[in-house]
């Protein structure tokens, strides 16, 4: 009896099962899911209190504030992406299974995006309205945040995989991926500003979409390699 003669589980089955399991875990612990969204809402509503609520001020600072808050909310929640699995040993079980590690990294990033990125997208129009953002800019905000959170989650999964064996890797994780996150922040915030002042803004969206596609293709492999390094 040897494995070549038997059926190994399919490649997609590990991906699907991991996404399902992580969504089930998120369902059982809703607090973890709400953390980034609450952070996003609180930080962006605190800004007007500090800088003054005049309409011109709000319109001017809105895109930047919303984007910084979204970036930080995503970064802070990424630390735990592989940590829980590493600590309870379930990551070990995956590493010594025939399932490819990049599929696991992609599945974790997808589940993380579904439970933190999507709620953030849903809340962002409400916060944007409180910044007196015009409808055109809110549309641009949602589209840029869509690509931005996907990219940040994927890029962050590389950092999370690299820092998984370290205790308190949050700061290091943020430092590691900030250089890769900067273009997303700059283009995201600038695109929303341009939309708010009725200028053409499609270039930024094209770039963010291209960034998201590149991250989708490359990040799972980088994260898998980083996980193997973390085990050394």
């Amino acid at each position, binding site marked *: *009896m*040897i*494995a*070549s003669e*038997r*059926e*190994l*589980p399919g490649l997609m*089955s*590990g991906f*699907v*099962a*991991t996404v*399902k*399991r992580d969504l*089930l*875990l998120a369902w*059982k*612990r809703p607090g973890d899911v709400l953390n980034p969204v609450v952070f996003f809402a609180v930080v962006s509503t605190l800004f007007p209190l500090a800088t003054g609520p005049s309409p011109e001020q709000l319109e001017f600072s809105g895109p930047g504030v919303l984007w910084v808050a979204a970036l930080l909310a995503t970064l802070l929640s990424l630390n735990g992406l592989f940590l829980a699995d590493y*600590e*309870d*040993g*379930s*990551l*070990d*079980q*995956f*590493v*010594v*299974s*025939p*399932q*490819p590690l990049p599929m696991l990294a992609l599945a974790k990033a997808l589940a993380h995006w579904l439970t933190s990125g999507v709620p953030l997208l849903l809340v962002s129009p409400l916060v944007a309205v409180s910044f007196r953002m015009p409808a055109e800019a809110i549309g641009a905000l949602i589209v840029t945040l869509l690509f931005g959170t996907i990219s940040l989650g994927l890029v962050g999964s590389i950092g999370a995989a690299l820092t998984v064996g370290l205790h308190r890797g949050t700061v290091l994780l943020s430092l590691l991926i900030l250089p890769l996150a900067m273009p997303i922040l700059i283009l995201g915030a600038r695109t929303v500003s341009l939309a708010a002042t009725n200028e053409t803004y499609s270039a930024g969206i094209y770039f963010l979409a291209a960034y998201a596609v590149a991250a989708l293709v490359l990040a799972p492999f980088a994260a898998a390699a980083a996980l193997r390094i973390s*085990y*050394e």
Partner: protein
Amino acid sequence: MTATLSATGITLFRGDRCLFEDVSFALEPGQLLLLEGPNGSGKTSLLKAIVGMLELEAGVVNWGGTPVLEQRQLFHGSLAWMAHRVGFKADLTLVENLRFEAVLRPQVAVDIEDILERVDVSRLKRLPVRSLSAGQKRRVALARMLLADVPLWLMDEPYTNLDREGRSLVAGVVNEHLAGGGLCVMAAHQDVDIDAPVQKVILQ
């Protein structure tokens, strides 16, 4: 090609420290390899080196005569690993955990309930793993081994935290696996109570 596990001259360093040097063994179907040694002597590291999680300084581990690193997927599809950390999600029930793991390796065509009955945890199946005792978790980890349709079992201290009945359960299950032509590598302190031919690697 038969299912054999062998190692020739494997050496492992962690940092500057040499954990073991020039370890060799050749394990045939139906045999047990027992790793013995005091705490911190590298038993767990040797198991991790066999599965390819730690990089060897020298030597090679072969599965069916081929180096495992050249056939990682096939090799990992042929083994089940009972690690020190059981690897279950604390918030999920044990059935949810085992269902998830069914995609990780080939599974036997046996009802999950029967296996849970066998390791005497079926009355706990609706509870989250968080509320299980350490010994009960070991029993669920044993259920994971029984559900996997694989020839090679790697067990890290399988008797830990178990009561007398649990220890004889482990011994019985391992004996049965070996009698069916399986292979087992086990790190253990206690008397293992195995009938099959036993080879030993003693680590300092």
